[in-house]
């Protein structure tokens, strides 16, 4: 029996568009844009100014505060400006703009092999921090913070999240199939930080090839096992993944470490491997370019800072006019209004659709069918939460645990009346969080 959680949905997968396409290297042209905020937490501080020459792999921005991340240049060239640019989330963020000279001149020692077994835990954490690694699954939580819980001894599970439950996305799958030794290498580096922990690579059972390849390699590894998971969205959501693997439950106010777990996505683990064993900081990531509007859907190894328009061009451009373009997957991604945004650390996919399903049906009144209740992986009652939002009753929203919503979108997906539930909950959560902060301060 495969491991799973309660609730969830089975949306159209769309993975076959790109599942079999090997990851291609994409070399960018023109300006590269590095927003100072590509992670959760405080913005990084720019270390370069207009006119400076930078090499590939050079640190161009430094973490400010505890939760923040460094930023590294993925090309060599001249800093053109430090100015506000639009990022995929739609925000305007101060960004370092570098004119790519096309030489890719590296800093000294870039790519040098390193034996991590001789390093202390502090040295490993330092390398991860300097590499600017954040959670590449989408949340962007700085990895060096995640890998430094209060007490290393309480961690007994290090989980690699290879669920990739978002429809259409196959970048994690391709990496597991093509570079399984890097995934295992990265996991071994992390396991070195936690002596009591064992490693679990959790993969949804719709990726038998990945399970087979990694499973084959971990046979030699005493501390690592592969755990097939039932294919169901949102299997890869952190709380559900931890439950599926360990049977432990965490809520919105807890960290995975509170349940003795460290969870990292496949690309993140590879980035850890590259930073520690190959002296290569986070400069690129795997991006799935897909959707029925794209000519040649596929997976690309893209340098951070490359514009979305260039990535789509690399996939042959559009075959039909897209109606909606999403950064990320269809369930939790952000709809874009411009393609002149840079690939950031958390850009997992570019999904171009010829049809906007949201526009197909007009929202109708709730008929209380209860499908949202059944689908909610957090065991909430979205139907009642929506009533609270409509009545602007934030107190009741919080009382019925509305703040536990993980915004996975299952309720909205199943709603036969096509009501924008998730959107309302996002709003309500932010209103309540803001009010709580205000009260705390005032």
């Amino acid at each position, binding site marked *: 029996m495969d491991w799973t959680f309660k609730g969830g949905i089975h949306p159209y997968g769309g993975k076959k568009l790109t599942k079999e396409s090997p990851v291609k290297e994409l070399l960018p042209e023109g300006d590269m844009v590095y927003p100072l905020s590509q992670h959760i937490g405080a913005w990084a501080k720019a270390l370069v100014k207009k006119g400076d020459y930078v090499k590939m792999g050079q640190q161009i921005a430094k973490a400010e505060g505890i939760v923040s991340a460094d930023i590294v240049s993925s090309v060599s060239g001249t800093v053109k400006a430090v100015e506000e640019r639009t990022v995929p989330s739609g925000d305007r963020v101060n960004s370092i703009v570098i004119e790519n000279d096309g030489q890719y001149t590296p800093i000294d020692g870039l790519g040098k092999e390193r034996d991590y077994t001789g390093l202390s835990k502090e040295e490993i954490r330092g390398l991860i921090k300097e590499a600017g690694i954040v959670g590449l699954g989408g949340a962007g939580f700085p990895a060096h913070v995640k890998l430094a819980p209060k007490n290393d001894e309480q961690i007994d599970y290090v989980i690699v999240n290879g669920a990739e439950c978002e429809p259409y996305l196959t970048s994690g799958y391709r990496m597991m199939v093509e570079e399984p030794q890097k995934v295992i290498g990265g996991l071994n580096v992390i396991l070195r930080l936690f002596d009591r922990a064992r490693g679990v690579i959790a993969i949804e059972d719709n990726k038998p090839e990945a399970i087979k390849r990694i499973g084959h390699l971990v046979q030699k590894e005493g501390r690592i096992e592969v755990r097939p998971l039932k294919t169901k969205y949102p299997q890869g959501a952190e709380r559900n993944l931890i439950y599926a693997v360990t049977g432990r439950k965490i809520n919105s106010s807890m960290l995975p470490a509170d349940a003795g777990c460290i969870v990292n996505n496949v690309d993140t683990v590879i980035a850890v491997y590259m930073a520690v064993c190959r002296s290569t900081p986070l400069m690129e990531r795997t991006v799935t370019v897909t959707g029925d509007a794209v000519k040649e859907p596929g997976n690309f190894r893209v340098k951070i800072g490359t514009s979305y328009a260039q990535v789509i061009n690399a996939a042959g451009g559009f075959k039909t006019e897209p*109606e909606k373009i999403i950064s990320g997957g269809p369930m939790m991604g952000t709809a874009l209004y411009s393609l002149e945004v840079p690939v950031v650390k958390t850009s997992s996919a570019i999904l171009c659709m010829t049809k906007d399903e*949201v526009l197909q049906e007009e929202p109708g009144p709730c008929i209380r069918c209860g499908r949202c*209740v059944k689908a909610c992986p957090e065991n909430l009652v979205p139907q009642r939460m929506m009533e609270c939002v409509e009545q602007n009753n934030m107190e009741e929203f919080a009382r019925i645990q509305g703040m536990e919503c993980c915004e996975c979108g299952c309720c909205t997906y199943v709603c036969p009346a096509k009501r924008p539930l998730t959107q309302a909950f996002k709003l309500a959560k932010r209103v309540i969080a803001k009010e709580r902060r205000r009260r705390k301060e005032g």
Partner: protein
Amino acid sequence: MKDLLNVSSSPHVRSKDTTAMIMYDVALALFPALVFGVYRFGFYALLVVVISAGTAVAAEYAFQAATGQRITVSDGSALVTGLLLGLNLPPEVPLWIPVMGSVFAVIFVKQLFGGLGQNFMNPALGARCFLLISFAGLMSNYPVDSVSGATPLALLRAGKEVSVRAMFMGNIPGCIGEVSTFAILLGGGYLVIKKIIPIWIPTAYLGTFVIVIFLFSERGRDIFYLAAQLCGGGLMMGAFFMATDYVTSPVTKKGQMMFGVLLGILTGVFRLSGSSTEGVSYAIILGNLTVPLIERISIPAAFGREKKRIQGENRLKIKKDAAVLCSITLIAGLILGGIYQITKIPIEKQRKETVVRTCQAVCPEGKTFEAGEQLSRALSEAASLFENGEFGSVVINQALEAKDKMGNPAGYVISVTSKDGFSGEITLMVGFSPSEPVLITGMEIVQLNETAGMGMRADEEEFKVQYKGKPASKLFLTKQLASAENEIDAISGATITSSAVNNAVNAAIYFLHTYIKAGT
């Protein structure tokens, strides 16, 4: 590329299911019950259902058009309401009944409370109860091929045997869509398999109902009685199609189970001790009213919050709500179910007064009515008198001697019960003149549970008055116009009732001649 891409909040994909698809699936699931109803009751039944459904859709359209709202009749919800109501009507109701019911359901129960999703009561059931209360006669007349019949539940209450197999298949009198348990299960099963209705509601409902009947009915240990109770009346239709109405049932699994249990208890109590044999409609409507309360106490603990949640104030609040819910069930059950028991004594008093009034009605000369010693003796001997069955199964209850103001004999009043009525006992009183030639001075019905519009017409003046002035000798029923002095016109379409009444009168005449007159 377009200048403007569509931008919206995630998720960007939607399932294919829509409200309309769900509604049409429910309509489809009602099809077996409809087909069977039409097969059993004929084309007219189809007409009733079609008019009911059509009126519901038209009423919704008219209301939305008149109030300037978006027209949403294509979502199918009005259609389902109309279908459900139509299937819940007796097969030969006049056609204005479905029209009136559907208008009431859609406009008063649904639209006036805010339309789809806002009504607190199942519109079809609301309308059915409205019709049941307002037009009791028409709504409880269940003819098959124009011949009235008692429903199996009425027979069960009268202590008679019923065929469970006929009930399961649907060869019984009843509402158009309710008679065949098999057809309903076919549609209900489809909805359960397609996951359109939660299985918790019907299983909790039927399970609790069986337990209640098993525990509290004298015949509850009889498997056939249990099966007959399950297949009888609107229980199956109610459990699968009415109680599972999304709008008026809880959304959480826990709530759905609580709701089912509540309905099971209420239906059991109503059926066992209520004055009507059916209890499903009222149980569900009452259950609908408790849904907001059930929702409050059935909010599940969020993932990872199971331990923390039920603490302190919250816990108290839930306990309070649960207590309120229990007391509502208890009080409602007691009031509605026990009303029959509570009112027994006043009813008895009233009955005695009625006896005197009836005596005066059948024997106008009389002022006081007494059972003398001689009459009492005659009565005790009378039991053996009717053993040969000439008058069917009859019993002489009372024989009274009437005296006028001056204390002179003014005649006799004899009370007879025949057990041969269509739905149980018929009790009547016959008055006789004091001296020869003995004439019948009047006949009044005291107790009659026959089918409305058919057997019940025995209590109409037109029928009863025929006995007045007839000589006290054996009387005969005729289906032609009565011409001879000893002939009585039978009630058309109610032969059984007519002959039960006539036998009872003849028994009284026989008793009078054999005992009273012979003795004096």
